[in-house]
């Protein structure tokens, strides 16, 4: 085990680097967790929860950030695992019951982190090759991971505080430089190895050095300071590349660089990407039926409006994004009737939440709820037009919801019924 650790030692595998990358990864995890929990409660609010409706781009920003931070986790997590990999071969493997728990928590941390970012990424590709439900598991693992992150910080706190600042690093560079005057390469490598062994905790050599290890030992070592800088630079460039070449699917200024994002701005009917199609939702017949009407209900009052009747009402034009949980978003111009005007026509209580029902036959978002903060917002529309044209069937014809700061799945398409919920 010791030999394995020694063979794996390289200049970039040191505690300082673990702290440097670990900090960034920790921040990315916290950002993902915070934005993820926000998105979760928007979709499944507790009864007392109210949400800000401004800025109208809030959800676009929070969920776009969720995905960007999640993608940035790929280079960061792989870098972190690369740095600490020799720890896998710690000897003795288990020192005490507490040590066993620590190692078990790290194993779960590593496994759950890899699964979390992988299923998150594949969800943005709408590819689900796993035998469990995505939404529930992704949310639960979010809590598991944030718990494990805090636990991990608690366990490693002495190392983290010791290597938090670069001071120690500078001292070591000085020692390396002093030892490097005679034969730079070899001395550097040996110093790095000894340093790594010393810092990770020194272990006595045990077992025989096999031919493999001899071969490994005969391989020229990487130059110390260059390889540390190179490691950080590579991680930085990889991070910038994976983020920069995908984030354009939500952050418009990066649109031209969006060559790997799963969505592209402007691609889709009427220039807006589509998630659930009319065919999949099973609404092609019901949404185009001549007898379609939108029913509004509150208390005992119930009224139905045909599309022509809705068109005859005062129309409002708003510019709002469709922002998907998958991280893409598209700003668009919507035209239709203010929901609060419709609510007033059936004398709905101003503090009432509403239930929105789609023509969809099934699906978890067939029926959704909307709190009074959105119902009463002047930007919330029953939209009839998109970007100057009659709403496309794929975008929810004959009528759909559009409200500020809400996830796309809650912008109910193919509306059928809107009713006030009496508390």
């Amino acid at each position, binding site marked *: 085990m010791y030999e394995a650790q020694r063979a794996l030692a390289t200049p970039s595998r040191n505690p300082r680097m673990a702290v440097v990358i670990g900090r960034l990864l920790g921040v990315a995890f916290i950002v993902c967790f915070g934005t993820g929990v926000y998105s979760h409660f928007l979709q499944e609010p507790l009864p007392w929860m109210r949400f800000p409706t401004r800025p109208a781009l809030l959800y676009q920003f929070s969920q776009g950030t969720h995905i960007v931070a999640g*993608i940035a986790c790929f280079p960061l997590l792989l870098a972190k695992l690369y740095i600490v990999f020799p720890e896998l071969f710690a000897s003795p493997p288990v020192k005490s019951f507490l040590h066993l728990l620590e190692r078990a928590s790290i194993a779960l941390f590593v496994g759950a982190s890899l699964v979390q970012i992988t299923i998150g990424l594949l969800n943005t590709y709408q590819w689900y090759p796993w035998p469990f439900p995505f939404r529930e598991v992704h949310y639960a693992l979010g809590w598991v991971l944030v718990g494990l992150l805090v636990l991990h910080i608690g366990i490693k706190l002495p190392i983290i505080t010791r290597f938090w600042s670069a001071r120690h690093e500078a001292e070591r560079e000085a020692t390396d430089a002093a030892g490097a005057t005679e034969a730079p390469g070899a001395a550097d490598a040996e110093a790095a190895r000894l340093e790594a062994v010393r810092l990770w905790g020194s272990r006595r050599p045990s077992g025989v050095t096999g031919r493999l290890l001899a071969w490994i030992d005969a391989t020229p070592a990487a*130059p110390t300071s260059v390889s540390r800088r190179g490691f950080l630079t*590579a991680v930085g460039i990889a991070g910038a*590349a994976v983020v920069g070449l995908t984030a354009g699917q939500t952050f418009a200024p990066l649109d031209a660089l969006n060559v790997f994002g799963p969505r592209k701005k402007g691609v889709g009917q009427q220039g807006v990407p589509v998630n659930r199609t009319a065919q999949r939702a099973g609404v092609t017949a019901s949404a185009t039926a001549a007898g379609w009407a939108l029913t509004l209900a509150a208390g005992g009052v119930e009224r139905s409006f045909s599309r022509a009747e809705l068109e005859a009402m005062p129309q409002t034009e708003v510019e709002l994004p469709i922002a998907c949980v998958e991280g893409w978003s598209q700003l668009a111009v919507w035209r239709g009737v203010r929901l609060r005007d419709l609510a007033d026509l059936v004398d709905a209580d101003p503090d009432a939440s509403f239930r929105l029902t789609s023509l969809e036959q099934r699906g978890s978002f067939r029926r959704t709820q909307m709190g009074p903060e959105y119902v009463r917002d002047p930007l919330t529309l029953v939209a009839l037009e998109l970007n100057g044209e009659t709403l496309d069937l794929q975008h929810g014809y004959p009528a759909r919801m559009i409200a500020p700061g809400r996830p796309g799945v809650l912008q109910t398409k193919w509306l059928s019924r809107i009713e006030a919920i009496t508390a």
Partner: protein
Amino acid sequence: MSTEIKRMRVARTVLILIGTAGLVFGLYVLFDTVRITRLPGVALWIGAAIVLHDAVLAPVVFFLGLLLRRAGHRATGTILVLVQGAIVVGSIMTLIVVPAIVAQGLSPNNPSILPLDYGRNLALFWAALALVTTVWAGLLYARSRRANQRPSSRQS
């Protein structure tokens, strides 16, 4: 010093307790919202992720690093590290884009999902990476040659 040790102990205890609470809550949510028959699948994926990383990915990276250092033993350290870095950047990008290509092959349920030519873009990305690396390595090589032509101040 002893107050410092004490403070460290308190901080660690608090963090470990909060962390454990988060972990337990997460597991509760998992058991509460996911059908029990689906849970072995979650465990399987987590276990497989550990095995895939520790037994496949990490050793492959390790031996690739060795091979590269052997193959490039005559190159200067800086150029070697540069090439290593480029391979790392390209590999991570590939890791993220290849699933998109696979998912695209499974015919997504509407044309606005995965609308780009990801295979071509990935090839272009590698080409650009190779170009930048070559130019950068060339500059480093020229600089080290110039430096070598001057009398060395370091070695006698």
